[in-house]
């Protein structure tokens, strides 16, 4: 029906890049024009993505659409640039372009008057282009190029307010931490090229299916996995994501909640044929994801910074998605990725609206009773939180339920229980936040005001998406999502009433507990903090992981640096200085032979002649010739 849109799919990537180039080269002196251009470009990309998705979903396109073009050719390594469009890509296209469009519109209000307004939109554009290129890539080489480009955009946007020391450090931290993962990813990609001779996804899928050397496959899978662990901020490379909240809040919403951090999950889904070939790696993925989900959720329980709570929540939900991948529920993981993108960007944008309204304050204890002054922000935030907590029939409920169902029916009882516990914690910490910030008994903030429509309208649209996006994967629509985002040999589990009931009850219990503690104050949370001060301190300090890394860095990096410094100073410099001293010393001694007396020099000459003649006489005349 919209088959012609596939021919134009390359424009989806190119438009934001063109906007970036135009803003960067010519328009940076006209902030309004830059913003219009950027929003126009992403808007057109969104329109095209909708057409592509419509073609894929409505037309029931089963085969994939692929075009490819040689980009880099050298002996032993051929990298193509191409487009690969199937159900998975279509979903990601919609998610990325719609959230990016709404975030860019919202930024118009949020970033208003910022001196870097133009460059902000330029960075947003380059991010959108890179992310779309990543999603549309048909081979690992292209994916890696765009993978690094989104990392660059993330770095630029985290450090957007680079005048602030913390923002600058956070940007560097994010970049370095990601490099650790990307190093593994690059090695994995090179291994794939060496072993299979191709980087193309469909080509690899055929090769991997017939490959029998499990040990090598495990090594390659683990190396590839390092990329998602870094980009999707899984334990132990999760440390950069909470710090990345130093960037402007719309950036946190788009890059560090909805899209870029989901790129790791997307990579696992795209290369699912490699990971699923070895059960050991799948188990590792599931354990890493499950652990990160629980680990981050516990930290989120006690944080006081509104954006940090959301950041740890993002970590936790990413862990959920990765866990879903690991237990083989790839469809459920991607479904959760999609719904999460909507409600988490909604939560971040609403949090941004709050921060914007009360002059940059981020401590939840300094807020309170904002619901009277900011009704739209409050209620959209509540919708997002309900979706995140998994209250039926909001989007998060359906996707989270799919994952829990996958774990339960797939026989992963431990991970199922863990997931349910995390769901409880999620509901609790989100509503702790809500009751403290928007309701609560606090006196409230006098100067708070509702944000302008340019910010609230994206919130409302996202709130609508947060409510309805889940239906596409629900039994109500006959699991439409699973028909398009799937993989060979996918098992579909029938919905279990017990799983649904338990996860809903757990979410409601979490909300109820938060209500009892923070709204009604039947239990004094300060006394609780006193009683469990040990655990509280541990959680509040994020299990001291940052400190541990810092200590290790001190020990190993600084220690090595010190040893090398010593080597440089005493050995390298010593050699050079020693040579110089030798020359100087010899000169000091030998200069006494230069007396200025012509006759002394004549005597030297005579001595020289005698020595030469003596040698000639002793060695014979052959020496002369």
């Amino acid at each position, binding site marked *: 029906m919209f088959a012609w849109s596939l021919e134009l799919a390359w424009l989806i990537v190119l438009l934001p890049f063109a906007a970036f180039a135009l803003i960067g080269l010519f328009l940076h002196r006209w902030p309004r024009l830059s913003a219009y251009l950027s929003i126009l470009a992403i808007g057109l990309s969104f329109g095209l993505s909708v057409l592509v998705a419509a073609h894929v979903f409505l037309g029931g396109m089963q085969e994939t659409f692929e075009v490819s073009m040689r980009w880099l050719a050298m002996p032993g390594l051929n990298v193509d640039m191409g487009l690969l469009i199937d159900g998975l890509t279509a979903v990601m296209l919609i998610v990325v372009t719609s959230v990016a469009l709404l975030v860019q519109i919202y930024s118009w209000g949020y970033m208003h008057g910022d001196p870097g307004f133009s460059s902000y939109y330029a960075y947003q554009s380059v991010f959108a282009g890179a992310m779309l290129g990543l999603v549309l890539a048909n081979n690992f080489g292209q994916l890696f190029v765009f993978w690094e480009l989104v990392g660059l955009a993330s770095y630029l946007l985290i450090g957007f307010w680079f005048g602030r020391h913390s923002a600058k450090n956070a940007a560097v931290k994010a970049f370095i931490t990601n490099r650790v993962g990307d190093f593994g990813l690059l090695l994995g990609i090179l291994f794939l090229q060496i072993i299979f001779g191709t980087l193309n996804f469909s080509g690899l899928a055929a090769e991997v299916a017939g490959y029998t050397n499990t040990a090598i496959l495990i090594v390659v899978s683990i190396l590839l996995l390092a990329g998602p662990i870094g980009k999707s901020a899984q334990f132990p490379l999760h440390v950069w994501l909470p710090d990345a909240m130093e960037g402007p809040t719309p950036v946190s919403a788009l890059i560090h909640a909805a899209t870029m951090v989901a790129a790791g999950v997307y990579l696992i889904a795209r290369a699912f044929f490699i990971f699923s070939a070895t059960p050991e790696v799948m188990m590792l993925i599931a354990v890493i994801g499950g652990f990160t989900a629980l680990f981050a959720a516990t930290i989120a329980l006690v944080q006081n910074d509104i954006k940090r709570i959301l950041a740890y929540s993002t970590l936790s939900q990413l862990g959920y998605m990765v866990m879903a991948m690991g237990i083989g529920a790839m469809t459920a993981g991607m479904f959760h990725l999609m719904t999460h993108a909507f409600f988490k960007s909604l939560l971040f944008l609403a949090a941004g609206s709050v921060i914007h309204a009360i002059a940059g304050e981020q401590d939840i204890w300094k807020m309170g009773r904002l619901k009277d002054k900011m009704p739209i922000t409050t209620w959209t935030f509540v919708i997002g939180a309900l979706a995140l907590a998994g209250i039926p029939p909001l989007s998060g409920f359906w996707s989270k339920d799919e994952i829990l169902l996958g774990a339960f029916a797939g026989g992963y009882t431990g991970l199922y229980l863990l997931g349910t516990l995390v769901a409880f914690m999620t509901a609790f910490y989100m509503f702790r936040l809500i009751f403290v910030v928007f309701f609560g008994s606090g006196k409230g903030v006098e100067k708070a005001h509702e944000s302008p429509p340019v910010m609230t309208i994206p919130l409302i649209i996202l709130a609508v998406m947060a409510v309805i996006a889940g239906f596409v994967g629900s039994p109500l629509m006959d699991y439409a999502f699973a028909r398009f985002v799937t993989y060979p040999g996918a098992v579909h589990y029938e919905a279990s009433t017990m799983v649904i009931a338990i996860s809903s009850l757990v979410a409601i219990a979490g909300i109820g507990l938060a209500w009892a503690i923070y709204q009604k104050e039947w239990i004094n949370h300060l006394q609780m903090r006193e009683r469990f001060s040990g655990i509280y301190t541990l959680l509040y300090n994020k299990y001291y992981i940052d400190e541990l890394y810092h200590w290790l860095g001190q020990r190993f990096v600084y220690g090595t640096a010190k040893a090398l410094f010593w080597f440089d100073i005493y050995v390298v410099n010593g050699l050079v200085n020693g040579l110089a001293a030798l020359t100087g010393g010899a000169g000091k001694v030998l200069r006494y032979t*230069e007396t200025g*007396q012509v006759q002394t020099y004549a*005597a030297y000459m005579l001595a020289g002649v005698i020595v030469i003649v003596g040698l000639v006489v002793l060695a014979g005349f052959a020496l002369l010739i």
Partner: protein
Amino acid sequence: MIGFQHYLLLATILFAIGIYGVLSKRNAVAVLMSVELMLNSVNLNFVAINRYIVTDQAVGQLFALIVIVVAAAEVAVGLALIISIFRQRKSVSLNDFNLLKW
């Protein structure tokens, strides 16, 4: 009978005396004279070798003539230098000419 060896011996003795003079005399004029002595011993060698070894050509004698001419020029320049230095230093002793040193 005076033979080839005698000429060589005489030349060697003259050369040694010249070297001794160059290295030990403090008077610059005496050093110049010693250099002349060394040159003359060389001339003697040239002529003797021409007479006893290369008898069909007069190369040695010609070379001796060249050396004599060059030596005359050298003495002219050398004496001019010495006079010039003497005007500066009121001395012809080489002990006083040791500015070019460490």
